[in-house]
């Protein structure tokens, strides 16, 4: 397999309701990514596109619909979709396009326009529940998260006020992100604990916001990357893995699917002790407890103890293992597919020392980004290093 580098990245602001169409959001991000590495569409050999359920944008075959904005015209073009995991899967797809030797330069774009689903985007998720055995009970999306969070908290005796620290740190980090929807430098644990109870134990500020946005990156094979930039960021490992299709049959305490995906990626990257060899983590954080869940799956904390990273300062931007220095989904926003790719873009900027106000000190050398989705059963992981 050939070495693959990320050589450029761009993104739109994440907003609650965008004026732009899905095509236009894709175009804005794609154009920035190309500009960032001074390439044009003539240099692009193939395009990989990610967008989550068609139901959000309200366009059947949304990948094909928005393909013009993503630069798909007269290129080998492929859309991947693994639900919330898409944003980290689409760069994996781009990676094997290049690693296989088929293409030298690939444009990877992820877009989501959730606000088109009217009036409440979460209704698009109802089909996550089985139509015959679950939907007649009148579920809403929050049920799954509330049930999982409760089981996770109860198993390890975790407190709400501790878990709220995750939301606080991520939203504070996001205050330094120019594209963030919910950055807040002054938010406190009390704000989270006093926010509206939606589905106990889930409260409003435990949840990432419904958003619109797009992100794009450019991938290149080693010989091209070295010609185009003196700061390539290599994709060192990739992994993805699926758990049972029946969420009520799943282990709600521990995300094995993330562990298996992480082990696949770590093995490829030659990582034996992830906690020591990884310097920045961007775990998927649509809910605050999910960041903890995923840090444990990523082998960055023992089971039930990821919260300690937040309590002792390890997770902070200048801590020993900065977590979601971007601000994550909780702070920057959660346009599903785009949110995952935002994490890859963040690692790209962080590892190049270009993250500006958000820059993690100490010249970090390696980072991991992860997403989660499908019917809440897929883990997707990418390790990047310089």
């Amino acid at each position: 397999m050939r070495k693959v580098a990320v050589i450029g990245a761009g993104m739109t602001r994440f907003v609650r309701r965008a004026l732009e169409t899905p095509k236009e959001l894709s175009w804005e991000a794609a154009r920035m990514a190309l500009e960032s590495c001074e390439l044009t569409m003539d240099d692009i050999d193939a395009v990989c596109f990610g967008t989550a359920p068609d139901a959000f944008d309200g366009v059947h075959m949304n990948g094909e619909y928005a393909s013009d904005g993503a630069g798909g015209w007269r290129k080998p073009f492929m859309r991947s979709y693994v639900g919330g995991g898409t944003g980290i899967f689409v760069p994996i797809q781009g990676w094997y396009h290049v690693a296989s030797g088929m293409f030298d330069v690939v444009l990877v774009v992820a877009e989501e326009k959730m606000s088109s689903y009217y009036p409440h985007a979460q209704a698009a998720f109802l089909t996550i529940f089985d139509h015959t055995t679950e939907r007649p009970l009148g579920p809403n999306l929050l049920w799954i998260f509330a049930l999982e969070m409760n089981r996770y908290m109860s198993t390890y005796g975790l407190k709400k006020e501790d878990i709220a620290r995750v939301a606080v740190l991520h939203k504070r980090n996001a205050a330094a992100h120019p594209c963030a929807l919910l950055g807040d430098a002054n938010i406190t644990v009390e704000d989270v604990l006093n926010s509206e109870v939606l589905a106990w134990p889930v409260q409003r500020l435990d949840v990432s916001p419904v958003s619109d946005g797009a992100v794009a990156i450019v991938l290149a094979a080693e010989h091209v990357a070295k010609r185009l930039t003196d700061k390539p960021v290599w994709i060192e490992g990739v992994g993805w893995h699926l758990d049972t299709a029946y969420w009520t049959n799943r282990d709600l305490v521990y995300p094995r699917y993330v562990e298996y995906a992480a082990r696949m990626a770590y093995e490829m990257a030659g990582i034996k002790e992830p906690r020591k060899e990884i310097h920045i983590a961007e775990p998927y954080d649509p809910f605050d407890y999910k960041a903890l869940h995923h840090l444990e799956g990523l082998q960055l904390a023992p089971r039930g103890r990821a919260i300690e990273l937040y309590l002792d300062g390890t997770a902070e931007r200048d801590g020993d293992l900065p977590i979601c220095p971007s601000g994550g989904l909780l702070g920057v926003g959660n346009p599903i597919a785009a949110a995952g790719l935002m994490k890859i873009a963040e690692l790209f900027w962080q590892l190049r020392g270009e993250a500006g106000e958000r820059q993690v000190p100490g010249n970090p050398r390696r980072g991991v980004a992860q997403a989660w989705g499908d019917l809440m059963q897929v883990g997707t992981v990418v390790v990047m290093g310089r």
Partner: protein
Amino acid sequence: MTFLERDPLAPQAWFGNLPAAHRYTYGLAGERFFRALKDEGKILGSYCPKCDRTYVPATAFCERCLGELTDWRDMGLVGELHTFTVLYVDVEGRPLETPQIVGLVSFGDGGIVHFLHADPESLVIGMPMRAVLKPPHERQGSILDIQYFEPFQA
């Protein structure tokens, strides 16, 4: 009953729906295109000087080079009949009392799909077709601000 046999007493199907309503914004380009149609009665295109292409309806970017399109042009209301079909049934498959004609009228390198008002026998591919707009006060900023296209004699 063997396992892989259906239980004859079992419900054969479960009925349900997907509650899907959408509110689509027109976007950067659509906002300008439909405002021009509504307020000025114009069909606008956008031109890429690099690729020498004119997009109609106007787009914000060129799909070939991803360049931003800033050269917007009034395309007039007369285009060329690119193709058409005559519909005898509606979307549910019921016969239509009056057959309906739908056509693609090309402008620049793009075009507009719309209803045609004409005797089907008189339609010839390549003939000029003119957009008939609603009166200004009835226009809402929608593709239906164009009522239909009809054959045009210069």
